């Protein structure tokens, strides 16, 4: 790709520094309409993102057409001219790293037959319960990302991915399940069986009286609430510009001392595992919360330089056209494990409307989906409908424990968490 070197040379002539992100990939998917495949898709993806830095002014642009890199470079430089200048101490230089590919499975094949096979196994799993399958999907992908900058960084990463999902219904009771991995290690039968189980066992749900109850959030329900309101408060930019409730609490106890939260970019088989972040900074473990005490926020280079902090290598990119932002790689909740479902509790598999939570205060009120009474670890009577109202910061203060089992939900790896005395609004 000689054009990348040309781009770097041309950029270096006109601005202090240039960063190039180029991604290319293929994805194949097959979708079910009820029990039959109605669509098979192949996607050819290609994108170029350019960032320029000149006297502390950061510019950016993107295009799907790498042949038009000159137009894209011009647009990036023009955008930098409008940006407010800030302190800038340089893009990273290359660091020798073990170049083992961490999210690439050479055995993963990207073809419609493999996708079809995964759907077949999910359907078989779903047939374990008397429900109707409404839709499902299986996607396989392979992609290559390249980060190059004018300070000598040139990292190439190959990724593979498989994701599957199935939705089912029994009367007016729905159940959905999914799995996602960089490796061909998912269990499609189990995914299908679980989707059908949830629909089947949620039907005939009973009303619940409003009151305060102990609630066991599944990793899925927990991930939705964390993502909507807690994780944005750990973002260094939000902290410094006044959009985080945690801003002045570094070093303070902010939650139950049995809880820790960290980002582990090197986690085996983690969906977000990587040796460098989206700006080419070498990644490292970040301890956000240690035994209940707030210990760190997440920074990219821009935010770190501006506020006199160090980058935690937390820059992420949702593709070439998305630009860089502060995020995490594998966000993990850890702590001593207990039997969270020994005593009677409301198990909540999912919530409806987590994104409507108040991202500043952390207050939420969401509808429950696939909620059951649970005792001795066993599912008991389903709950028909109810709302859960609470606060994502306060709910961590005095928890009833976290489960042994962990589940990967996107870039989070979470246990189930037992919360005490949560407000449930029923009939």
């Amino acid at each position, binding site marked *: 790709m000689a054009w990348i070197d040309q781009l770097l040379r041309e950029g270096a002539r006109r601005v202090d520094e240039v960063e190039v992100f180029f991604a290319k990939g293929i994805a194949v998917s097959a979708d079910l309409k009820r029990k039959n495949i109605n669509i098979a898709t192949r996607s050819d993806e290609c994108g170029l993102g350019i960032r320029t830095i000149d006297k502390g002014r950061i510019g950016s642009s993107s295009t799907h057409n790498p042949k038009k890199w000159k137009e894209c470079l011009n*647009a990036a430089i023009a955008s930098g001219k409008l940006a*407010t200048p800030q302190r800038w101490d340089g893009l990273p230089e290359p660091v020798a790293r073990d170049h083992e590919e961490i999210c690439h499975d050479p055995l993963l094949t990207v073809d419609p037959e493999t996708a079809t096979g995964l759907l077949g196994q999910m359907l078989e799993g779903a047939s374990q319960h008397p429900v109707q399958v409404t839709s499902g999907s299986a996607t396989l992908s392979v992609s290559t990302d390249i980060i190059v900058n004018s300070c000598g960084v040139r990292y190439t990463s190959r990724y593979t991915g498989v994701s599957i999902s199935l939705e089912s219904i029994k009367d007016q009771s729905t159940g959905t399940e999914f799995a996602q991995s960089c490796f061909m290690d998912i269990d499609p039968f189990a995914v299908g069986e679980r989707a059908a189980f949830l629909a089947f066992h949620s039907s005939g749900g009973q009303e619940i009286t409003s009151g305060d109850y102990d609630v066991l959030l599944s990793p899925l329900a927990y991930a939705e609430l964390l993502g909507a309101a807690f994780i944005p408060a750990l973002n260094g930019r939000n902290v410094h510009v006044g959009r985080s*409730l945690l801003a002045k609490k570094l070093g303070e106890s902010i939650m139950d001392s049995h809880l820790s939260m960290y980002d582990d970019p090197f986690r085996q088989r983690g969906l977000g595992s990587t040796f460098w972040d989206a700006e080419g900074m070498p990644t490292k473990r970040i301890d956000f919360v240690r035994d209940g005490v707030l210990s760190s926020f997440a920074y990219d280079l821009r935010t770190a330089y501006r506020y006199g902090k160090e980058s935690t290598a937390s820059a992420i990119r949702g593709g070439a056209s998305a630009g860089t932002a502060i995020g995490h790689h594998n966000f993990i909740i850890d702590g001593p494990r207990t039997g969270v479902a020994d005593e009677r509790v409301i198990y909540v598999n999912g919530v409806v409307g987590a994104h409507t939570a108040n991202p500043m205060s952390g207050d939420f009120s969401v509808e429950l989906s696939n909620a059951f009474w649970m005792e001795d670890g066993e599912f008991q009577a389903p709950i028909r409908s109810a709302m859960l109202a609470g606060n994502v910061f306060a709910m961590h203060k005095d928890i009833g424990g976290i489960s042994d089992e962990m589940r990967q939900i996107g870039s989070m790896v979470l246990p189930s968490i037992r919360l005490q005395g949560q407000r449930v609004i029923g009939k």
Partner: protein
Amino acid sequence: MSEPSSIRYHDLRHVTGQSTLIDIDNGAVESAGTSFFNRAILRVLGSHGWGILQIDNFSPCSKKKFNSLLASASRLAAVTRQDVDLSEATYHALGVPPMQEDPRDVSIEEKTSLLSEIEQAARHPEIVNRRANYIERSEHILFSDSSGHEFSYEICRSGFNVLAVASRNGTVQMGYERVHSISGFDLRHRQEYGEKAAKVAIALLDAGNAKGGRMRAVLDPELAGVFAHEAVGHASEGDLVQEGSSVLAGRVGERIGNDRLSIVDDPSIPEFGFEPFDAEGVAVKRTEIIRNGVVNAFLHSRETLAAVGHGIAGHARAMAAEPPLVRMSNTYIENGDSTLEEMMELCKNGILLKGSRGGQVDPGRGIFQFNAEYGFLIEEGECTRMVRDVSLSGEILSTLHGILLCGNDRSMHPGYCGKGGQSVPVSDGAPHILLENAMVGGSGVD
């Protein structure tokens, strides 16, 4: 290479254009620039179902190259087993409404300076963060199909959001305003939105938490529009009806609300969800989903209309290079004849809910949830204490019966709607409505 013989139909939708984004955060211009996109989707209907190619950086190609793309899509279609049929459709392209001022004629420097005025208008000693974003996206869409239809159009959507965050003694609250349209550049003299965001954020510092439970609720036009979208719109989408994940399936002709209630989706009106023709090239028209309380029709693509019936095609929409899905466009509750005063009086004791933080629905289960930006308690017909973080949930088949009154002051509000990983511009609207027995979620206690 000739066109593969197993192909019953094919279409190509090619989207090119550019987007301009400006982000001002506490006075600093974080970014202000332009990016370019070029994506296409080729759909082929084989003996059973669809084979689809999504192509980044597409360029119009020779007949030979195009036939080889058709052959690739055809090989994908060969793994499908669902028998897909397409309904007949009418074809017509509406003109894109003219813009008063084309945003592309305004320099990015001027846009940045105007946005900055809006952001600065949110300044106040208790406001700890102000953020304003400008979003402009101009798209050129070229559609052609194997039946010989070929249409194109260009549309520019633009607008801004402004956020203000207030803080006092450890309490943090926000106010958020947005203006988006297809009617042209609209950043001039808009400081009032910055001021309003700040005012709401500060007022919310003193607001209480609502006590959850069942009560009467008056919804403002913006929130009532989201109610129509979540409670009825999604469940009327033909693909969900077809696959059995909508509680409205099989209920055409059934009464699910009172006589006063009519809910419409109309992609042809010049609001934020406008489309000159849909993502299958089909003419767009108004669909009355609920007419006088009775389920009247579903929203459809050609595929779902053929499978389900009841309605018209022309409701398929797609992001660039994404497969068309049955989607809402401009969805609203028709005006009734009540005044807000009459509603407050009849409500007597309850809650007035204003603004929207979005919502979500499980259409198969028939349960929806949505969240207001803020509200006021109604006591003896008067608005009293301000409350925050109030959400509403309900069941599609029962809640609509609870609409006691519809106002005569409908207005439309722009937003984006997500489905199947695609986000498309929509508008929702309604007059004020009075809802009986509303399920209000809040963490407050007596």
